């Protein structure tokens, strides 16, 4: 078991539900100081989380619920007689047409009302955020690069420079946490075909199961059919981590 595989078992370790892989997991922890420290630190956090006191709702909530339940039952009983015509298909179709027409009309009316000063100011802010994001992403220090990724959330979704910097982080950054954060930030750019293609290609280049699963989640989120071949390749890859393979097979079913 390597570090990556061990990290996918941490939650079971904290919950005490490690079974088949217990021996392998223990052996890895015994030999790896870093994983041991992380598992133990976070185990304390997990334990403290479990002792957080619960909130009590107010008494009013219960009476409110019972009042509404009574009202609902009374309404249901009445509705069956009085409003039978509302369920008639002809009435429902007419209402749908009316609402659609009203929606289209108001959409046209509201479009084109933009105030130029506001958009100019916004443009200047965007430039500044872009600069900060781009320069932080180039830093030596991983925590600076993480900050760069968080700045990337604040740029406009059509900012191609920040997008390509993020993609290169996903593909080449030496630190798994930075790569993961960059994948999360890509969510902002998935309306952009370059962003979607980039993520699909990145899937084949990753060796970290954590990053692979995060990318698969993004692809499923966007239902991106152009990523099908990358996902298929991963789902069929004999060398891939079993959990990743299983997740890729699940992702395939979601997109197809």
């Amino acid at each position, binding site marked *: 078991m390597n570090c990556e595989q061990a990290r996918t078992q941490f939650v079971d370790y904290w919950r005490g539900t490690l079974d088949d892989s217990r021996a392998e997991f223990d052996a890895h922890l015994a030999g790896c100081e870093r994983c041991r420290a992380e598992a133990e630190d976070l185990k304390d*956090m997990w334990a403290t989380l479990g002792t957080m006191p619960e909130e*009590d*709702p*107010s008494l009013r*909530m219960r009476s409110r619920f019972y009042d509404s339940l009574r009202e*609902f039952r009374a309404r249901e009983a009445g509705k069956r007689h009085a409003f039978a015509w509302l369920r008639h298909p002809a009435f429902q179709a007419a209402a749908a047409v009316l609402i659609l027409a009203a929606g289209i009309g108001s959409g046209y009316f509201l479009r084109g009302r933009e105030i130029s000063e506001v958009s100019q100011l916004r443009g200047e802010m965007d430039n500044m955020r872009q600069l900060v994001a781009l320069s932080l992403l180039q830093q030596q220090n991983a925590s600076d690069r993480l900050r760069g990724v968080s700045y990337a959330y604040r740029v406009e979704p059509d900012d191609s420079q920040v997008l390509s910097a993020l993609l290169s982080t996903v593909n080449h950054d030496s630190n798994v946490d930075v790569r993961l954060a960059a994948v999360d930030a890509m969510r902002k750019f998935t309306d952009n075909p370059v962003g979607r293609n980039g993520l699909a290609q990145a899937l084949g280049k990753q060796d970290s199961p954590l990053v692979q699963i995060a990318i698969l989640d993004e692809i499923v989120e966007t239902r991106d059919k152009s990523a099908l071949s990358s996902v298929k390749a991963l789902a069929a890859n004999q060398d891939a981590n079993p959990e990743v393979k299983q997740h890729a097979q699940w992702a395939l079913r979601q997109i197809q």
Partner: protein
Amino acid sequence: MQAVREGDLGALAVLFERHHRPLFNYFVHMNGNRDLSEDLVQDVFMRMLKYRQSYQPDRAFAAWMYQIARNAQADSIGKRKLEIAMPEREFASANVMEENLKRRQEISLLKKAMSRLPEDKRELLVLSRFQNLKYDEIGAILGCDVGAVKVRVYRAVKALGQIYFELSGERAS
């Protein structure tokens, strides 16, 4: 819930008594606002009545309930334009008073860290740790498989740990 679905609306009272408290706590963790959370619990139970036909008896009730809860929470964000600034007040609780100072600080710091966690990660911790749902139930709610749930929960705990240690560093200095 099957009884409710088949027309016995009064049976919802049993479900309310069993689930309203955990559900209320889910919302408090998600939005930090007690009043809003009470509204949302009410909303969820009313939606259960309204959409009772969509309940499938072969699926876990908790998964269905939390799916409705997530929609209600998402709709409330749309309406209220996101109350990001979560209150960092102490939640009123009798046990907190009895505990020693160090532990109280620890809990309050942890709440602060939770409130700074991104929403999707916070939700995973609430479901897996506070609501004690099983991985397959969480998978059903979020629409993914068990392996991915484990990895995401690990990442959420790790992110929480980082915020927590940063905050305790701020406090020490």
